[in-house]
């Protein structure tokens, strides 16, 4: 059962959606989705690391003995994360500040190491890139979605564009709203996904 490249890329949207279906990487999902733009940035940052580390790992995998693959992968992933940190600090310092702790934490995001172990390990560079792209896009999409919902409900705006006067329901931009939105979106998502099947 091999998937086409397109399938690899799109499976993360619904079938293997890392947020709603696999329930992975919950911390950044909850913490950084105070607005659509923040969620999207976090998603893209993860996507960046995911694609590059997937590619690098699939490239070196044949030469890394089994016994040390975990430390080797950790080193590789951490490298890309640090590179990302440098780039963000240099070119998008404001966003770097906003996302804060959660950028270095991409290292321990289960999705990244998980994909390395489960997929990149055994596939070609191209396939791994597609896989990383797919899962990363799925992650980005769901973070953006969650960020949008929270932003709309919490402040009455999307992507910073305000469409109501006055405040929104503030709880949604705070911790309780993060959990609440994710919980209900997860139900909704799974219902829709089931219907589509």
């Amino acid at each position, binding site marked *: 059962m091999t998937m086409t490249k397109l399938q690899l890329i799109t499976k993360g949207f619904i079938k293997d959606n890392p947020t709603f279906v696999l*329930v*992975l*990487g*919950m*911390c*950044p999902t*909850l*913490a950084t989705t105070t607005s659509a733009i923040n969620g999207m940035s976090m998603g893209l940052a993860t996507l960046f690391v995911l694609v590059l580390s997937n590619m690098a790992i699939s490239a070196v995998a044949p030469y890394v003995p089994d016994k040390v693959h*975990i*430390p080797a992968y*950790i*080193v590789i992933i*951490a*490298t890309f*994360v*640090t590179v990302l*940190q*440098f780039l963000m600090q240099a070119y998008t310092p404001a966003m770097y500040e906003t996302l804060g*702790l959660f950028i*270095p*934490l991409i*290292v*321990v*995001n*289960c999705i990244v*190491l998980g994909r390395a172990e489960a997929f990149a390990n055994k596939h070609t560079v191209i396939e791994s890139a597609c896989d990383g792209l797919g899962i990363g896009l799925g992650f980005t999409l769901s973070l953006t979605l969650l960020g949008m919902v929270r932003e709309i409900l919490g402040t009455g705006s999307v992507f910073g564009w305000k469409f109501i006067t006055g405040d929104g329901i503030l*709880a949604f931009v*705070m*911790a*309780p*709203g*993060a*959990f*609440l939105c*994710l*919980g*209900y979106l*997860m*139900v909704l998502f*799974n*219902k829709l996904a089931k219907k589509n099947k």
Partner: protein
Amino acid sequence: MEYFLIIISAIFVNNIVLSQFLGICPFLGVSNKLSTATGMSAAVCFVITLSTIVTYLLNKYLLDPYGLTFLQTIAFILVIAALVQTVEIVLKKTSPSLYQALGIYLPLITTNCAVLGVAITVVTKQFTFGDPAHMLNLGEAAVYAFATAVGYGVAMIIFSGIREHLALNDVPKPFRGIPIALVTASILAMAFMGFSGLV
């Protein structure tokens, strides 16, 4: 007094799970039974405290003097991974029966972003009790890490109690499992907001 404030702040006001969003995956994954939750909490407490101390020293005596603080992420994760594994080996070598009894918890901790999160926070965070630019010293760092981990344990244990209770109830089907846990966490987070301003 400083220690006391740090403890109250870390456990209640800025609870690691309910307001800082760290370590959520195992929090959602392992909190469905009280016994596992307790074991996991103890393990997390130990590992977080120990690795915070080690990374603190690493940062202060190795990275900082050589201007390498930008290597925090990679160095810390390597040290933590090694540390967790060391504990595992030590336990295994010293008492295989103990090790067998605990085998469940250790692998989970490696993927727990709370450990790395706390380690990084400790060396970057400025605490504003009194002096706005105060960085934590080792004692405070250890207390902070410990208290944060206790906060993790508190949240975990409360949560496992609720989830064991929910398991017996008829929660509507689509909500069973993770979604109802998230809704519960949401209300719990609301409740914990009452502690705001305590320190």
